[in-house]
């Protein structure tokens, strides 16, 4: 039986809606009066919070979508099915946010459609732009399949059904390409970006970290959703995902060290400069410690253990992107930049939209696994699951 559309307005949701409203006001001011009016961006710091955080981090965090798609739909590891849809949803919303952030940030926004018709293929940004635009479309189509389960339209669903396999595969190639090209954007900044981060293979580091971030993101998001909806967190799934993260992070660390040694800049990490300290924090707190936590069964099998380690991984990837955009560029760019209150407001507003959209969609579409199914899937795959709490319906 079909439930009616519903979206209950709780106090938290009122606050989120208020934030969105504020964002819209700031956005209008920005579009009419220009970027100088609302942002602290300047000629030293052409890219700030919106590009550094909303775009680069938003897209990286959305990496959960493509790693899950790869594991579940290409490698057909059925035991991860319970989290597949939620991962797709967050990822799709992350991309929409990134595109909106981009529209806010570009100066000549009336020209935003030009790159579709003007092919500047010699630019890394060209690849980023096309991949993000196409991948967002692919994700919306993939989601369309779920949408049509609720809003019945059989002919459409059939067409989409046929297209699903190619869509899934393209939906992994595209993010692989652009996660790496997001990093490659900084290849041109040779002599500008600090050598601890600048590398010809910075693209590899970006795509690799976006991928191992995926399971961590799924873990955090799953735990939060479980709390919000009084469900059992899918702990066995989180645990077995830690293996993916663990091995990928070890590879990441090794390649990073080889790359630094190969370019002869390894010693820069220990010269006590601001950059070197930030780099060491990034590598020790956010790479080595999570590796250790994931490696120790006593930590990884506890909910608090996986969640803490996952949070470290997530913060670590954000920290890495921030180091590339800000720390690593600071010496060469000079000047000062700290986001203005308005920039913060827009960022808050955008993430509020994301949360609201997530809530609306999981409450109205079949996204989260039915609790009895969670058990079944887990049992058939030999994993145990905790006591299932009946949903409060």
């Amino acid at each position: 039986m079909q439930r009616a559309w519903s979206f209950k307005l709780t106090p938290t949701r009122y606050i989120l809606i208020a934030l969105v409203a504020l964002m819209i006001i700031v956005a209008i001011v920005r579009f009419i009066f220009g970027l100088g009016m609302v942002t602290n961006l300047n000629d030293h710091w052409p890219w700030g919070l919106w590009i550094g955080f909303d775009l680069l981090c938003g897209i990286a965090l959305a990496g959960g979508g493509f790693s899950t798609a790869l594991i579940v739909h290409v490698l057909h590891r059925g035991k991860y099915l319970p989290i597949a849809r939620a991962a797709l949803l967050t990822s799709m919303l992350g991309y929409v946010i990134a595109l909106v952030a981009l529209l806010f940030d570009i100066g000549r926004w009336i020209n935003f459609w030009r790159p579709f018709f003007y092919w500047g293929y010699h630019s890394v940004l060209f690849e980023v732009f096309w991949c993000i635009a196409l991948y967002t479309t692919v994700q919306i189509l993939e989601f369309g399949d779920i949408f049509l389960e609720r809003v019945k339209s059989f002919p459409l669903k059939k067409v989409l059904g046929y297209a699903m396999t190619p869509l899934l595969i393209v939906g992994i190639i595209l993010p692989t390409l652009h996660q790496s090209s997001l990093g490659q954007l900084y290849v041109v900044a040779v002599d500008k970006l600090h050598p601890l981060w600048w590398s010809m293979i910075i693209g590899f580091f970006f795509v690799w970290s976006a991928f191992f971030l995926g399971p961590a993101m799924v873990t955090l998001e799953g735990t939060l959703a479980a709390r919000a909806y009084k469900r059992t967190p899918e702990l066995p799934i989180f645990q077995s995902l830690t293996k993916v993260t663990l091995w990928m992070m070890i590879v990441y660390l090794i390649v990073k060290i080889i790359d630094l040694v190969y370019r002869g800049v390894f010693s820069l990490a220990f010269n006590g400069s601001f950059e070197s300290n930030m780099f060491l924090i990034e590598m020790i707190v956010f790479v080595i410690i999570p590796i250790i936590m994931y490696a120790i069964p006593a930590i990884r099998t506890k909910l608090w253990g996986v969640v803490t380690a996952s949070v470290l991984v997530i913060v670590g990837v954000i920290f890495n992107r921030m180091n590339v955009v800000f720390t690593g560029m600071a010496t060469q760019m000079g000047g000062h930049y700290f986001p203005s209150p308005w920039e913060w407001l827009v960022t808050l507003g955008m993430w509020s939209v994301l949360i609201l959209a997530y809530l609306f969609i999981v409450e109205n579409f079949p996204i989260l696994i039915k609790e009895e199914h969670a058990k079944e899937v887990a049992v058939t795959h030999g994993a145990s699951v905790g006591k299932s709490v009946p949903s409060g319906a």
Partner: protein
Amino acid sequence: MPKGVLVDVTRCFGCRSCQVACKQWNDIPATPTTFNNSWDNPPELNAYNWTRVEYHLIEKDNQIKWRFVKRQCMHCEEPACESACFTHSFVKTKEGPVIYKPTELKQDFCVGCRYCMIACPFNIPKFEWDKALPFLRKCRFCNDRLHEGLEPACVAACPSGALKFGEKEELLAEARQRIDANPAYIKHIYGEKEYGGTSWLYLSDVPFEEIGFKTGVSEKPIPLYSWEVLRWTPYIFVGWGAILTALYFYTKRRAEVHAEEDMYTAVETMEEEKK
């Protein structure tokens, strides 16, 4: 033939005529200046100041000396700004200038993403932060004057002979000659090899790093760097696609089928509704 300008730092006495001439010819509005801890004025290049004489106090032969350096866009032979721009709004012309098409040719495809500002190794393109629909602005090598056979406004205004306009090849030859004739010069022409060479060239009698130049930089043009990573894209696309497809069909045979349709469900709001 490509043109260039040779800037001889030893001859500049810091009169700032070039700054004024640039503003006049290009019709750039005056901007309020600010106090700063150097003698430079304006303190920085921006959308309304495309060239600027930097004042450097340096120590030479146990004496404190002034050196004045006119800076502007270097008009690279293979510009980072051009290769970075995905709308191809910056373009190197065969005469030498690197121009910005939206203002120069009225071909407005620029989206204002400012990637060119990240890419330029000399931090040259500047943004009109105060405009609703801003352009990128920078020295245009007086593209219009060059087409009329005139020298750039700043060169025409220079009373000291510090700036010399001409065929780039001839300027390079002259620069070498000056270096050979006078041992006071540093044996380096800045802009001959830096990032694959630039149309504006500098001579100095004090080390370039003491007067604000980035030295020891790459001699490989920046566009080559991004091309080296970009050219793999098609192979990755096809190769990765093939691997994924193979994996998909290989693992599908072994996997059991799940009735996805009724595995998932919508959930209920838990928090209390506001009354």
